[in-house]
Every structure is written in structure tokens, then in C-alpha cells.
């Protein structure tokens, strides 16, 4: 029964659903957010706050819980559902302290040999005065380095928007899995259109050209899995069941790898992107 989620079954439909439609779906109202995934996938979840330097970034929820019977660390960007919640969560755009908060939890996960699940859903890292003052660039850069050598398995799950460096700061992972209607891009289609063509209305062309859909990402060798979505948001329950098994299997398998092998594979996953042959 679970085979209906096998990516190959749905791939044929890709050509008639345009990239921009997926981008719109990824932002749609009512789409499950990070917290919904935690509530449905993780039992006994204990939320842990703060980066121990500046403060606590509400745009990201971090903590520990159980995936089936396995203790895991969860780092989930949260956009919020209601307007009030959205404002509180800064629409899922993290400040530097958010990346440092995430890193603190990853270090704890490493210490206690817990796998890490990163749930990514952001239009991008926040651009504002305070974010720059506190070193947005440095915070993301540090995560890239530290995640590359974190001695515990990491899976990054893209559930909606995957906006540029802000998403990558939680996505230097052993496995990148994407929901069918999530996207992952170097720049938002609007941003691309307004910079390159000075016309933000050309967003549809930009979305298509940037190759940002889950299917594109799989073709380009960046995402390993596509999780197909039910047509009705109410049927999302099935996705949670499916993901629970999938994540559990993945972490059980990675336990068989030595730390060195795990890190070597992670390095190689990124090292090979854009490698020029014959050198």
C-alpha cells in the first residue's frame, strides 16, 4: 500500500504542472508547518530554547523526542498558521541566533549519539539590521562547517519553501528529502525576476528557469527522495505515517555505518556537485 508514495509513480505528471504552481502550493495557506510534523512524527517531544548567546529565535523550534522508540533531535523552522502566530514566528525567517540555537542542539545530538531531523520551511534567512549586526552570514557559514563534520546522521526534510542560504544553513545533511510541492532555490523566483529582468511579474519564467522543484532537485542529484503528496490537505496523516517509517529505517541503516564512513559520504555528496571531470 505504501508504494503509492514511491516517487516513480508520480513523476510522469511533472511536465504538466509548472514550477510556479509548486512554489505557490509550497506557500499555500493551511499547509502543514514544522510544528505539525513534530506533533505527528515525534512522541514525548521536549522543546529546548535558546542559543546561549543572544536569545531564543521563535522562527525555529528545537528539542528532543522519540521517533518510534528512537531518541532524536528535531530542528524545525516554524512559520505559524494564524496571523498572530506568523508574526511571532517571524514568518519562518530565522535570525543568526536561530542558526546558533540549531547548532547547539546538533552538538548535543552528537554528544548523545542522537540522529538529527531538520525540517526546513523558509523563504530565506531574515534580512534586517539586527540580523546583520549579529552576523547572519557568519552564523550560516558556521553551520555549514559544523554540519559537515557532525558525527551523527542528519536528514533534512523540505516541507515547503527552501529559500537559499537560510535553508542551506539547516541542510548540510546526509539525506535531503523533499515533499512533492516543496522547492529549494538559490533565490526566490520573484527576486530572480526582479534582478535579472527588472520585472517581478516574470516570476513564472524565473521559477521554471531556476529548476527549483523537488523533481529538478532529484534530477540534479541534490535531493534523494521525493515524498508525493495527497491532493487533499486532510489526508496528510498518511504522509506522517510514511515519513515515520522512512526516517526510522534511514537512521537504523546509518547506524551500521562507521562515523568516518558517514562523514566521508556526506562530504562526497556535496563535493561532487559541480566537480569537473578529468582533472
Amino acid at each position, binding site marked *: 500500500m505504501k508504494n503509492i508514495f514511491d516517487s516513480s509513480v508520480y513523476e510522469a505528471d511533472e511536465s504538466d504542472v509548472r514550477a510556479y504552481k509548486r512554489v505557490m502550493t509550497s506557500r499555500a495557506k493551511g499547509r502543514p508547518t514544522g510544528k505539525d510534523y513534530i506533533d505527528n512524527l515525534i512522541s514525548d517531544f521536549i522543546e529546548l530554547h535558546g542559543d546561549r548567546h543572544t536569545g531564543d529565535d521563535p522562527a525555529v523550534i528545537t528539542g528532543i523526542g522519540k521517533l518510534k522508540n528512537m531518541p532524536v533531535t528535531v530542528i524545525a523552522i516554524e512559520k505559524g498558521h494564524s496571523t498572530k502566530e506568523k508574526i511571532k514566528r517571524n514568518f519562518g525567517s530565522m535570525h543568526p541566533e536561530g542558526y546558533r540555537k540549531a547548532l547547539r542542539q546538533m552538538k548535543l545530538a552528537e554528544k548523545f549519539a542522537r540522529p538529527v531531523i531538520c525540517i526546513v520551511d523558509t523563504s530565506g534567512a531574515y534580512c534586517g539590521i539586527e540580523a546583520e549586526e549579529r552576523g547572519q552570514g557568519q552564523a550560516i557559514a558556521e553551520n555549514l*562547517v559544523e554540519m559537515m563534520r557532525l558525527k551523527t546522521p542528519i536528514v533534512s526534510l523540505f516541507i515547503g519553501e527552501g529559500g537559499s542560504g537560510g535553508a542551506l544553513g539547516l541542510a548540510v545533511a546526509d539525506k535531503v528529502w523533499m515533499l512533492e510541492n516543496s522547492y*529549494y532555490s538559490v533565490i526566490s523566483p520573484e527576486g530572480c525576476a526582479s534582478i535579472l529582468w527588472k520585472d517581478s511579474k516574470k516570476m513564472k519564467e524565473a521559477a521554471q*528557469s*531556476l*529548476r*527549483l522543484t523537488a523533481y529538478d532537485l532529484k534530477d540534479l542529484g541534490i535531493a534523494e527522495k521525493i515524498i508525493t503528496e495527497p491532493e487533499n490537505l486532510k489526508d496528510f496523516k498518511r504522509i506522517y505515517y510514511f515519513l515515520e517509517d522512512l526516517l526510522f529505517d534511514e537512521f537504523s541503516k546509518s547506524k551500521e555505518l562507521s562515523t568516518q564512513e558517514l562523514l566521508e559520504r556526506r562530504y562526497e555528496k556535496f563535493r561532487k*556537485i559541480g566537480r569537473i571531470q578529468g582533472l
Partner: protein
Amino acid sequence: MLKKSLFQKPENRLETYEKIPVKGEQKQQGPEIPDNMFINCPSCRETLLSADVKENNGVCIKCGNHFKIGVRQRINMLLDEGSFVGMYGDMTSRNLIDFPGYDKKLEEATSKSGEKEAVICGTGKIKGSSAAIFFMNGDFMMGSMGTVVGEKITLIFEYAAANDLPVIGYTISGGARMQEGILSLMQMAKTSGAVMRHGEAGGLYIAVLTNPTTGGVTASFAMEGDIIISEPGALIGFAGPRVIEQTIRQKLPQGFQRAEFMVEKGFVDAIVERKEQREYLSKLLKLHSKEMLV
């Protein structure tokens, strides 16, 4: 709507006699001056002789404002004469995701800058100390990082790790290169991995940030130096000032994201003027040389 021209004063020859040159008549002027003989310093507004500025390594002789300079001039300025050995110089970018107009952009950038990509890598000596180096090139698509830039920088860190060399990297960049989509973004992770491995092998990495260093380069190898220095006044940030202004809908304070600000906030170790850099880097390299440890 009324035409704007209706409100313009008609040209009256008697009133504007001095201003409008009559056709065929030469305007009274001094000797002819070539366009690029003088430049205006945007900082102190002084008019300067281009030759003077060039001789002064592209620094204003009045106020010390650092102008942009070409990547080759930088190499000559910094390294011991004849010590530079270029590496991976033949690598060129391809339009990997068929992005509209990218091929043409690449062609233009190549002919405009005379270089094949936005970074030059190699080895060289600074006052006798050897180092692996990379210099980003702002004249090539604003120094944006695509797969080739990412690959070359990764390779130079791998080379330095294998050969026990320190790395000195000059950054100037608008960020990740949009035209290569997600593949550009992945270069941030890739280069960070290489920096990490070079560091774990005990290698020293000094990043020198020049104006401007932004976006994906700031959020990766530019901010990962063991020591990070910057040229005076350089713009350093994750988001560009215009993007921030659009997001928060207010003007940014004077000096925001400039090198001095970054030192104040604790993200840059020191500001080093262009003419001091050779001496400064040479000192740092000597302090980290293996002989010093004996």
C-alpha cells in the same frame, strides 16, 4: 495628462546665450582633456589624476578611499615578483541548467574581464613565505560564485591541505550565481567542507574581504577564515543594503555593513589598508610557520 514640456520655459537665445552652443561653432574651452585622465573620489570629492591613483594601488591620495582594482594588479601588488603560479586556469563555466541568457552573459564577462572565471587560484610567495592563494574577480559577473568558482576554491583548499600550505583568499562577490540555480547554492556547502578539512589538517586560512563581499560568499568561506581582515570601507554583509531597505522599509544608518562596523560588531579581526597588506600578511604567515614552533 498635460505634457511636461508645456511647462518648460521656451529657449530664448538672448537669455541663454552663454549656455547653448550655436551649431557649427566650437565652444570656447581650454586644452582638450581625455575622459579618463581624471577621476573623482566619491569619498572626499577631490578630482585626482588617474595616474596618481593607479600608482598608489588604487587608493585616493587625499583621503585614502580604496577604489576597486583589477585582480591582476592585486596579484602583482601582493606577491613576490614572478612567484605566482596559476592553477586550474582553464576551467570555464557551462550553462548547466539551460538558464536563459547565461551563455551570452558568460561570453560578455569573459571578453570584458579577459579572464575565464570569477576567481584566480594558484600558489605564490609573500616576502618569501609560500601560500596557496585565491583572488576573486569582481569584473567577472560581479564575482558571483557558480560551480566553477566553487570547484576552484575547493580544489585550492584541497591542494593546500595535501601540501601543508596556508591559504590566503581575497573575496569580492555579489553572492551565489543565480544563473546556475541550486548548483551555485551547493557550492557554499562544498567550499565550507574544503575549508573545514584544510583546517582539520592544521592549515591556516586568512580571508581578506574587499568591497563588496556579500550573499553566499559571506555566508560561507569569507566568514570561515581563522583570521579575517578587511580593506577600509568594504561592504560586508549577508543581505545587500537594498534588499534590507526594501524589507524593513527604512533607510539604513551611515556606515552600516562597512568594514569598520564589522570590526565593531566582532566579525572581522582587523582593517588593513591596501599598502600595508603585504607586510601584514607576511608577518602573519611567518608567525604561523612551522619553524616558529621549534
